[in-house]
């Protein structure tokens, strides 16, 4: 079943996962299927975050999942399995990206820009949440387009925090940055996305008016 929101962390689920991990460590390979099944979509999203190409992201997921199986004995129960899996995925995806040397083709995100306050540029009123709009492929594409227009450092924190539903501390750990940096980047990511999306989602979508082409995805 798809969920519009991420599932609540459930201690019973974590116990169940820990039981599966113990069975895998004892040689019951089949239990690995059940362990990773709930996280396939999230792992793909993490891989796509870095690679931004469906085929590469899918290859990355396949290798990551196999790597997780191979290194399952190294997993420590104090971390969540999902966080561990996402961290392995991001590491693998970054390695692939370095090999592809694609980073040279992209603008460099200046970390020092983090310190500058971001001022919203658009004050379109967008009160009502159009969750039904997500049924439309067009809207999902606009959201993906807006997200992809962010710099890498902002996209990373936004995806991990607001899409993967990691906590600030988990996001910081996965990315190897401080919680304060996560908060600063998250603020900018959210405000930049709102500037990009509010004019379209604030009303035009509901009236079926064609989205204008321009800097904004609307």
């Amino acid at each position: 079943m798809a969920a519009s929101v991420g599932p609540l962390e459930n201690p019973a689920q974590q116990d169940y996962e820990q039981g599966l991990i113990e069975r895998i460590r004892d040689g019951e390979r089949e239990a690995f299927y059940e362990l990773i099944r709930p996280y396939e979509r999230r792992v793909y999203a993490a891989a796509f975050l870095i690679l931004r190409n469906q085929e590469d992201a899918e290859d990355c997921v396949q290798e990551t999942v196999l790597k997780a199986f191979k290194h399952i004995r190294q997993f420590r129960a104090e971390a969540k399995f999902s966080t561990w899996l996402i961290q392995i995925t991001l590491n693998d995806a970054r390695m692939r990206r370095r090999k592809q040397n694609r980073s040279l083709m992209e603008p460099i995100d200046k970390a020092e820009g983090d310190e500058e306050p971001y001022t919203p540029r658009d004050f379109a009123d967008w009160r009502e949440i159009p969750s039904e709009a997500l049924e439309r492929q067009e809207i999902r594409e606009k959201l993906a387009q807006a997200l992809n227009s962010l710099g890498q450092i902002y996209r990373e924190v936004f995806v991990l925090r607001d899409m993967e539903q990691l906590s600030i501390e988990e996001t910081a750990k996965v990315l190897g940055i401080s919680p304060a940096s996560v908060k600063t980047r998250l603020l900018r990511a959210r405000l930049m996305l709102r500037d990009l999306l509010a004019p379209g989602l604030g009303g035009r979508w509901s009236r079926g008016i064609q989205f204008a082409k321009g800097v904004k995805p609307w």
Partner: protein
Amino acid sequence: MVITCDDLWREISNYLDGDVGPELQSAIDGHLRECRRCVAVVAGTRNLIELYGDERVQQVPSGFSNRLHQKLESRLLPSRRHFLGWIVATAATALVIGSFETARSSVLGGPALRSKHAKGSTRVPPDLQVIVAEQGKTFHVARCPFIHGQAGLRTIPALEAEREGFAPCVRCMKKYLDATA
């Protein structure tokens, strides 16, 4: 404490995550009663967080899951005997989970969730007093910034909210449950 629009924009993310102190919370609430521009910024930011938090945004390529499992089978389970064992194990797990869900559903005795995409929780204390909005689909703790619409707000026990088809707000309820765990 009086704050400006600039102050609010610096804190908007923390405000929506419920990560501000009571004094700042009160100052922001006061500012929002007076400033339409900031109301638009806060509402829009809250909306995009909810939209991107929806799994429908995370699209995977067609056939992705099948290809992943085929890869796993070819690398992890080379023999047919193991594959058949996996089928049996999966079927058994599905049966157990299905029985559990059926039992839980019958205990709650409630209708389907208001959002067909939402997920319930077994972890919320049934007697916890929660807030629901008439037009909403989720239930919240008091002062959650993700409560939509101020009209028709009710305070009811969590069990009652679940019976009425409300699902737990992933943000405020998660924070509450983590804090009380």
